[in-house]
């Protein structure tokens, strides 16, 4: 390397750092957004994988919503193919804690002495099954902390009239379930992944299964989930053993328990969080991408200017390759420093902002995860960032600094007989010459596959960015037409503004995209907040909406439950429905297995159908639909007429969504298996149900004559006016009916709203980052294009344009860019909100699109852009036009 190179590089770094600082800052913001999100994603995945065993609790799980047949358990226990087994029966109940006001919804896990099969759950003190067998319970840490519970070091009878039991209860060393006290013999560390796996119905309490049975908390009529966790011998093949188990389960008729493998459990546990994180990742990567493109503008502007210097130094005898390395090296050093700073800031952002907001999911603390101790992640990051940097910088080098040594790429390509790789490279460079922004976009999108192998993530990103890109290109084209075309009559200032936008199409496109993206995120967040969070709150507030639900009331308890609920609510404030459990056994006389064989659709659709067919369905009966108009409506066929006069109407009305998922159409015959008795009905109508109504709704509604002899359970929805009444009613219910589940919907809605709000806060935070980046890029864009803008406006001034016209034209340019950017963002946000609501969150309601927030954001953006315009205009007007026009290049 020549002796002049290193001093020249040092001088170049010193001289250019100020000029490159805006580009670097922009890249830094993008990188920090991406790092923060990817750390969150990595943490989530790490936690999930770490706890994969615990999610299921064994190699496989056999489960049913009724008690598993004893014969099956015996046969599996005696088989040499099974090393160990543990039976866990879970059910929902209400627990009372001293001075806690209303009873708390809990999930009881009734376990046997083999629990836990997988040593993933931590107990304090160590689990002693004897203490459980004698009536003790284990409670989750969070539950204990929330209610100030302590360990009880003595045995109690648990009887309601026993003074010792009562004393322990008062001292918060025991919990009351129904009319019986259970001393606390240990604490269980919270199972974090439970938050992902399902929307939890309360804290977990563990007790011995035999105690639960003895206390009649478990019975054949209870709403429960009975699980048999199995562990295979070490040398056994999991696949072969699972196959054997499937065959064994086929012998059970008529209704088989479900079989779930560890992989299934992992998939279902991670899916909701995964969807959310994919979405966050897409936003983060889009942020990096757009801000990276923005900074690329700055870098290219730098390299472009260096053409002149390179020419001079080349004439002085410097090697052109070394010159290229000099300027590209400088740009790479600055970019690498910006990316490193961004990654560091991203970690801080994750630890300070994201992890605390998602505390429930990241209970392990944010500090332990750092890029340094995540070797794989670091390598992936470094590679992606390096390639992105190269893709941003190298084309500029090839274009600006090496141009003198080669002919036009397109010409070279047309006449080239070079090998394919060289022709591909030439095509890439030729593309860069003609569509630089599009080539950058495609390159960066391809790089996204390096960061994530998730097809959904990449597709979301591709759809989001290419959609936005083409929309924006279209807008730039329209604005260009506003330019100086002699056929369009508009005020001269607007036409000059349009002409300026058209003069720098790639830069204008990028500025519009950045505004579009950031405004889109902000408006999207607003939409989700207003449409979903407020919707959930609204659904459970107000005098007319049910806010307490009682499910699974046995027929003999229905009158009592009705009475308890009626005491607290206004007349007519208690809705009740009969619920009959059944399995869908046949569709058009084909078994569900046969139906699935001929099922057409994607793998996802097939899995959904499998899941729906394997689970128990809740049926209800109704004479008419008239009083349900608010929450459901017939979308196809006809609901039976109440005055038809027929003794039995063997018809069923199916919810449109499940009908679509199962390929069920009008006229199909469905056979339900209700405790071994087949009921055959014909589909005569499809209904659209408004699930957000917070009223009892059902997938399958039959005529009462069909279910008149079927066993049923009661389900109630009551509107209770205030907190105090709700507490009294729930206390009353838990004491008199410990086996039934009563839900306070306001608490659930609060929890859902909190979760969504936390997620939206992160989106908000990121959109703020992107917004800051977009503004930064506006200034960057104004700065990099200043020379050209100054030249054009100096010319206009020489041609007689006065200061006012110059000001109006510069303002016009910035206002048009920001206005169109914001409008694109708002429209994209509406599309995105709809997509996310329908796919990720499965909300069918019509979107309530708000215009005002969009206008407010647009106003802010336009105002800030006007400041950039003012700065730019002042700088232009301070220059002597004649001198500007005499400057080289």
């Amino acid at each position, binding site marked *: 390397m020549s002796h002049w190179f290193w001093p020249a590089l040092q001088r170049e770094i010193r001289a250019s750092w100020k000029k490159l600082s805006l580009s670097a800052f922009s890249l830094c913001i993008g990188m920090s957004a991406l790092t923060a999100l990817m750390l969150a994603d990595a943490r989530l995945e790490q936690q999930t994988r770490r706890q994969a065993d615990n999610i299921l609790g064994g190699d496989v799980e056999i489960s049913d919503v009724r008690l598993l047949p004893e014969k099956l358990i015996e046969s599996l226990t005696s088989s040499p193919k099974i090393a160990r087994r543990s039976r866990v029966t879970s059910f929902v109940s209400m627990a009372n804690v001293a001075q806690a006001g209303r009873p708390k919804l809990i999930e009881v896990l009734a376990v046997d002495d083999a629990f836990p099969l997988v040593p993933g759950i931590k107990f304090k003190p160590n689990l002693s099954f004897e203490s459980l067998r004698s009536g003790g319970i284990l409670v989750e840490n969070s539950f204990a902390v929330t209610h100030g519970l302590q360990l009880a070091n003595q045995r109690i009878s648990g009887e309601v009239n026993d003074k010792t039991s009562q004393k322990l209860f008062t001292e918060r060393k025991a919990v009351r379930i129904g009319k019986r006290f259970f001393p606390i013999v240990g604490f269980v560390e919270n199972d974090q992944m439970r938050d992902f796996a399902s929307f939890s119905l309360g804290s977990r309490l563990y007790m011995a299964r035999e105690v639960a049975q003895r206390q009649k908390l478990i019975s054949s009529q209870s709403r429960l989930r009975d699980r048999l966790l199995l562990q295979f011998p070490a040398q056994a093949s999991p696949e072969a053993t699972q196959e054997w188990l499937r065959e064994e389960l086929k012998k059970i008729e008529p209704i088989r328990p479900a079989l779930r493998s560890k992989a299934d459990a992992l998939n279902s546990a991670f899916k909701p969080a995964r969807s959310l994180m994919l979405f966050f990742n897409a936003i983060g990567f889009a942020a990096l991408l757009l801000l990276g493109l923005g900074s690329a503008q700055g870098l290219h502007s730098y390299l472009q200017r260096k053409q002149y210097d390179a020419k001079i130094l080349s004439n002085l005898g410097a090697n052109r390759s070394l010159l290229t390395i000099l300027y590209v090296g400088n740009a790479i050093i600055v970019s690498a420093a910006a990316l490193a700073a961004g990654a560091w800031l991203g970690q801080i952002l994750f630890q300070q902002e994201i992890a605390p907001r998602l505390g429930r999911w990241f209970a392990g603390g944010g500090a332990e995860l750092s890029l340094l101790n995540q070797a794989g992640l670091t390598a992936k990051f470094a590679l992606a960032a390096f390639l992105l940097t190269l893709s941003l910088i190298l084309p500029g080098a090839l274009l600006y600094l090496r141009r003198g040594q080669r002919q036009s790429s397109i010409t070279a390509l047309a006449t080239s007989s070079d090998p394919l790789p060289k022709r591909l490279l030439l095509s890439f460079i030729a593309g860069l010459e003609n569509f630089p922004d599009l080539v950058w976009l495609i390159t960066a999108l391809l790089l996204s596959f390096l960061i994530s192998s998730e097809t959904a993530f990449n597709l979301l990103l591709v759809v989001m960015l290419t959609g936005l890109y083409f929309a924006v290109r279209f807008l730039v084209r329209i604005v260009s037409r506003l*330019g*100086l*075309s*002699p056929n369009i009559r508009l005020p*001269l200032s607007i*036409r*000059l503004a349009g*002409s300026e936008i*058209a*003069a720098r199409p790639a830069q204008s496109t990028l500025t519009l995209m950045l505004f579009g993206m950031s405004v889109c995120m902000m408006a999207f967040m607003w939409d989700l907040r207003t449409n979903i969070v407020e919707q959930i709150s609204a659904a459970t507030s107000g005098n007319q909406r049910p806010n307490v639900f009682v499910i699974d009331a046995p027929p003999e308890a229905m009158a009592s439950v009705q009475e308890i609920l009626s005491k607290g609510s206004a007349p007519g404030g208690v809705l009740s429905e009969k619920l009959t459990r059944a399995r869908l056994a046949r569709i058009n006389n084909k078994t569900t297995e046969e139906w699935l064989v001929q099922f057409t659709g994607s793998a996802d659709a097939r899995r959904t159908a499998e899941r729906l067919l394997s689970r128990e369905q809740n049926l209800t009966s109704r004479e008419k639909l008239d009083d349900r108009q608010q929450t459901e409506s017939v979308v196809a066929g006809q609901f039976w007429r109440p005055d038809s006069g027929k003794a039995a109407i063997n018809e069923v009305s199916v919810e449109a969504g499940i009908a679509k998922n199962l390929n069920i159409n009008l006229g199909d015959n469905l056979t339900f298996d209700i405790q071994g008795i087949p009921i055959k009905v014909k589909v005569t109508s499809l209904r659209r149900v408004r699930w957000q109504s917070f009223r009892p709704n059902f997938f399958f509604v039959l005529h009462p004559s069909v279910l008149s002899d079927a066993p049923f359970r009661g389900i109630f929805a009551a509107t209770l006016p205030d907190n105090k009444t709700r507490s009294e009613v729930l206390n009353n219910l838990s004491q008199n009916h410990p086996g039934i589940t009563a839900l306070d919907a306001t608490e659930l809605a609060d929890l859902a709203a909190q979760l969504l709000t936390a997620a939206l806060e992160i989106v908000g935070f990121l959109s703020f980052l992107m917004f800051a980046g977009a503004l930064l890029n506006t200034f960057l864009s104004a700065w990099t294009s200043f020379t050209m803008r100054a*030249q*054009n406006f100096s*010319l*206009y*001034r*020489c*041609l*007689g*344009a*006065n*200061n*006012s*016209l110059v000001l109006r034209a510069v303002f016009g340019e910035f206002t048009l860019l920001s206005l169109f950017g914001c409008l694109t963002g708002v429209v994209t946000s509406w599309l995105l909100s709809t997509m996310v609501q329908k796919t990720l969150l499965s909300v069918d309601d019509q979107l309530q699109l708000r215009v005002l927030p969009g206008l407010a954001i647009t106003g802010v953006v336009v105002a800030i852009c006007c400041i950039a315009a003012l700065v730019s205009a002042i700088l232009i007007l301070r220059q*002597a*036009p*004649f*001198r500007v*026009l*005499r400057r080289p290049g």
Partner: protein
Amino acid sequence: MIEIENVTKEYPSPEGLRLRILDSISANIPSGSQLGVVGRSGSGKTTLLSMIAGLERPSTGAIRFNGFPISTAGEAELSRFRAREVGFVYQTFQLLKHLSALENVLIAAEIASHPKAKSAAQEALDWVGLSTRLKHRPDQLSGGEQQRVAIARAIVNKPKLLLCDEPTGNLDPQSADQVFRLISSLSMELGATLFFVTHDYALAHQLSGRIELERGQLSRLQLSEGVRP
């Protein structure tokens, strides 16, 4: 008549001193004169043109054009003056690359609020012999053609003052000669006063008058009517 009265122009230097670019220049130039402005680099030629156009103000002294006080007029008046009375031609053409030839000329007519801007632009391009290249962009034209577009833009508003800053500096001798003849004939046709800055003394001698500047001072002023054959 252009009256230049004791005009001095100074700029602050990076060392905090005052750099005198023009020093006590005085001249009365009759309307319709065709003047070659010559002098070494840094002698103040461009600064003089810039002040005659009202783009810069003299530090001391005054400049008037047909009684209009260029050196003291307000910004709006000066803009109107430049739009209607002045035409510029530059060495580097200064065409907007993203606009067609017609649009480049049209912009000057529109800034001057010409009532028939489009037809005036077409007529101007016709004058310079580019009526068939209206929709071509600068990068689709040769250097000489680009300069002719710039000349069309300068004359579209039929100015009374034509300021040319080394318009032949970037052209080959043949194109330079064509451009020179075009400018001088058009200025004569319009009855405009022509200031033609050049380093080429041969070209300057072809014009009827000459201003020679040396270190910011007027070393020679020669005025006479008509163009030499």
